């Protein structure tokens, strides 16, 4: 019985790993290469913590969706868009927000399962006694559960 569930988990780990390739490619594209968010990778901002500047495409897209003055934090004082405004293009979209939130939730679950199952593999390799293994397992999956709840809450409530 125990062996069977181990085999299933081993199999699942490979499936989640393969799935993560696609999820991560999408995540990186959205965060770094989409023309509206290009500044995420292209600028360095120094200690004064001024916000990064976004390309015109981002400015126009945010203006088209959220009128300046109507929402807090989407625009800087000088009228340029903020990182939050850019992210809300997806997470506060009247139509597609559900899809993006769904994508993020799926990503969250798959990444946590793969990462923490892998972490447990490593831990059980180095921890010798059964008691220690049990404690490590309980602690790590508890942490994963806490992160799941935090992650779900953040991404679901963002922009809504």
């Amino acid at each position, binding site marked *: 019985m125990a062996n069977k569930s181990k085999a299933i988990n081993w199999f699942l780990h490979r499936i989640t790993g393969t799935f993560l390739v696609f999820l991560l490619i999408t995540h990186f594209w959205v965060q770094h290469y989409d023309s509206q968010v290009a500044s995420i990778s292209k600028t360095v901002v120094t*200690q004064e913590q001024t916000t990064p500047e976004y390309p015109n495409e981002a400015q126009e897209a945010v203006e088209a969706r959220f009128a300046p003055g109507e929402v807090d934090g989407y625009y800087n004082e000088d009228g340029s868009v*903020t*990182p939050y405004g850019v992210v809300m293009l997806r997470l506060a979209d009247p139509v597609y927000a559900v899809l993006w939130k769904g994508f993020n939730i799926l990503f969250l679950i798959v990444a946590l399962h793969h990462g923490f199952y892998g*972490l447990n593999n490593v831990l059980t390799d180095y921890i010798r006694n059964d008691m220690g293994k049990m404690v490590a397992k309980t602690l790590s999956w508890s942490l994963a559960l806490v992160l799941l709840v935090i992650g779900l809450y953040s991404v679901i409530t963002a922009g809504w």
Partner: protein
Amino acid sequence: MAVETAERPEAHEVTQEVQTDTSRFQRYRVRTGMFAWMAHRLSGLALVGYLVVHIWGLRALTSPEAFNALIAKYHAPIYKVGEFLLLVAVAYHAMNGLRIVLIDFLGWSPNQKKLFWTLGAVTAVIIAVGGYPSIYALVDHYFLS
């Protein structure tokens, strides 16, 4: 331990190799495999560490002020280095993970040197193309402007 061997056929394969062939050439291959495995483990652990920090930081998604401050912080030079290292870890772990999956599911040999080096080249390209903006931003900040 028997169960663990069953869970990780890769390690099993390597042990067998040591037993069956100890020519110099073969030993080199074992060491490459060993290194690939250690690096996979380390990059996996690093990614778990990042994921924890990432999800914890994303609590800021619920507050515009907090989120804008967080992103401003992430544009400091030191984080550009971190961003690059993160890409290295992700690219390596993803490509080597893919190699493991191909070996396990399609029965490809772990000694597939062609597969190893092809994916190695793909990894290098991902790091070069994907890492360019972070490195360029640093160079631009310190030397060009």
